[in-house]
């Protein structure tokens, strides 16, 4: 008798659990389907005019689609580039109009659903390495133009590669849960209180530009946190820091002339800064091709970002006393041997060629990841129409060990008026 009651109790509990799980699953499915338009039953007529294709080409550059969907030296848009994430490797897909390997069998409605809802033609959920949390803001008109352009590029038979993600990230169920928590399709909403130029900038920065993918923070599930804005973020795996675009101590441009912001994005150099690392890639493959009007719009939006209150950073005299004299001496020796030739013996640089290190905000930033990267790997600014023959920095990763790099950076950050905290061996070994 008691046994039967116990059995019945267990049965009810199980039933409740099943119902609960079913409800949760239904909720997740519903959340994954929200904002999704039904696909048209009949294939729609689609007239890809040369003007539409040209517009799509331009927009594909604004979104830097080729940056991920093309391998080094490979056919444009044929996909196959490995993108390392903290959850495993995602391979970009073939966007050429090949019927089997590419998106040749996709309709413009399929393409729109991928851009706006993050769902593939076959119904699979897409990984947000494809930045649809940003592209969801792209208008249907712009999505159709990009679709028209991609239909016009030469088809490539390159088959898509299977992603290599760890369990459970490799399952559609985990992706569905992620999307239920972190993704909502939404259209761009213009701010009526701002001029049209500002709104155009907001649309480009927040949509195709997907600037927040690097310049924002991500939560523990890898989702960009729109509420924190472009306040800077460490780029996963690459170990570069995309500085805050809101903070005048990092890469904020509120006090830059608009023309300088435009110059930086168009040529890679500006009077008060230049692009290296991942941003050199962005200028080289994307922003250098944008119109002055669009770059001006981006500038007016970035200049107006809600600034952070200038923090009284730990740049106080006490730090000076904390700099180890031996480290400073070692750093100075390395500086004199390796750096002074271009950056000058007082860190003054050479206008138009080599940047000054004295008073340079990129040198004095709290985050030192980029300094360590630049010393290890060097690099050239991108060749652009406005700066076709850029200057470059040598890679010192072979010549200097982690202690050398820490010492020379500590010296640079503590000399010629710079007064920023030392760089430790802990920082330089964590590359």
């Amino acid at each position, binding site marked *: 008798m008691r046994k039967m009651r116990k059995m019945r109790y267990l049965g009810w509990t199980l039933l409740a659990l099943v119902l609960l799980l079913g409800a949760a699953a239904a909720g997740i499915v519903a959340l994954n389907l929200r904002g999704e338009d039904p696909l048209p039953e009949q294939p729609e007529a689609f007239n890809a005019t040369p003007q539409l294709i040209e517009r799509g080409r331009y927009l594909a550059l604004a979104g830097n689609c080729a940056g991920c969907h093309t391998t080094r*030296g490979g056919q444009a848009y044929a996909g196959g580039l490995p993108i390392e994430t903290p959850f495993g490797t995602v391979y970009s897909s073939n966007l050429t109009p090949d019927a089997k390997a590419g998106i040749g069998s996709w309709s413009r409605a399929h393409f729109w659903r991928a851009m706006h809802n993050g769902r593939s033609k076959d119904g699979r959920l897409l990984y947000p390495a494809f930045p649809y949390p940003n592209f969801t803001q792209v208008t249907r008109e712009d999505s159709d133009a990009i679709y028209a352009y991609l239909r016009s590029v030469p088809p490539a038979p390159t088959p898509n590669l299977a992603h290599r993600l760890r369990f459970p990230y490799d399952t559609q169920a985990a992706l569905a849960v992620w999307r239920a928590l972190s993704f909502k399709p939404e259209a761009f909403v213009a701010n009526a209180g701002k001029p049209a130029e500002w709104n155009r900038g907001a649309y480009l920065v927040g949509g195709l530009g997907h600037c927040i993918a690097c310049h924002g923070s991500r939560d523990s599930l890898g989702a960009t946190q729109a509420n924190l804005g472009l306040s800077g973020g460490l780029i996963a795996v690459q170990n570069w820091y995309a500085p805050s675009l809101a903070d005048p101590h990092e890469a904020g441009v509120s006090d830059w002339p608009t023309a300088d912001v435009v110059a930086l994005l168009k040529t890679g150099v500006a009077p008060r800064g230049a692009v290296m690392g991942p941003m*050199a890639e962005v200028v080289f493959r994307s922003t250098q091709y944008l119109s002055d009007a669009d770059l001006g719009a981006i500038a007016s939006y970035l200049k107006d970002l809600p600034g952070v209150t200038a923090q009284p950073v730990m740049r106080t005299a006490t730090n000076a006393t904390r700099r180890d004299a031996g480290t400073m001496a070692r750093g100075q020796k390395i500086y004199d041997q390796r750096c002074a030739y271009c950056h*000058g013996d007082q860190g003054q640089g*050479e206008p138009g060629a080599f940047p000054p290190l004295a008073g340079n905000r990129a040198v004095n930033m709290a985050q030192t990841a980029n300094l360590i990267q630049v010393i290890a790997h*060097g690099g*050239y600014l991108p*060749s652009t129409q406005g700066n076709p023959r850029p*200057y470059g920095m*040598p*890679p010192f990763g072979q010549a200097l060990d982690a202690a050398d790099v820490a010492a020379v950076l500590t010296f640079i950050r503590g000399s010629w008026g710079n007064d920023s905290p030392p760089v430790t061996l802990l920082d330089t070994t964590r590359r």
Partner: protein
Amino acid sequence: MRKALHRIAAIALLLLLGHGIAAIAATPPAPAPPSGNDIERRVAACIACHGREGATTNAGYFPRLSGKPAGYLFNQLRSFRDGRRFNTDMTYMVQHLSDAYLMEMAEYFAGLNLPYPPVPPVSDAPPAQLARGRQLALEGDATRRIPACVECHGAALTGVQPAIPGLLGLPRLYVSSQLGAWLTSERHALAPDCMADIGRRMTTADINAVASWLAVQPMPADPKPATSLPAALPMSCGGMPK
């Protein structure tokens, strides 16, 4: 044609400049203010590894750049950028540079005419290995269809204009690792990739032998690349001007 004349004039100018630089190379020159097209300062990033003005000794790993045929240097820079050659630092340096700029860099280093350091004639390689290396370099190995180095790289092995590199004055480690990379398909050139075909016909013993022998050859009195091939290439190679 006018462009070609300009190019020749530019190279001549660089050669003159190169002589001037060679004279003061013993002491590191003080930074000069930017002058003319300023290319020597724009390629300053290359010197941390390849030596000042692109001339290294034959010790270590990094290959000398100065005096190599411009077409060869240009092809290598493009290959690093476009994924045919792999070296993390090189790829990183050139990944965002245009063809025009890479060609200008190549022409700059090709136009330098700097003296070669004397090559120590001693080697720790056994005499039999050196003999095998000499045989491969000068005669090849017909049974395995390996052409002699001299058939393509010039009778003096100083390369042939405009796109075949010299093989002398290079670190042994560099030569052997390049041949090894052909053998294991890690280094590629524009198709048809003739050196990949040759590399795959060689054994690691062959590679060590020829690299050891090449590394101890003195530079001939005229270290410049030959202006033309004595005969047609034994096989078809990409990246050569048509």
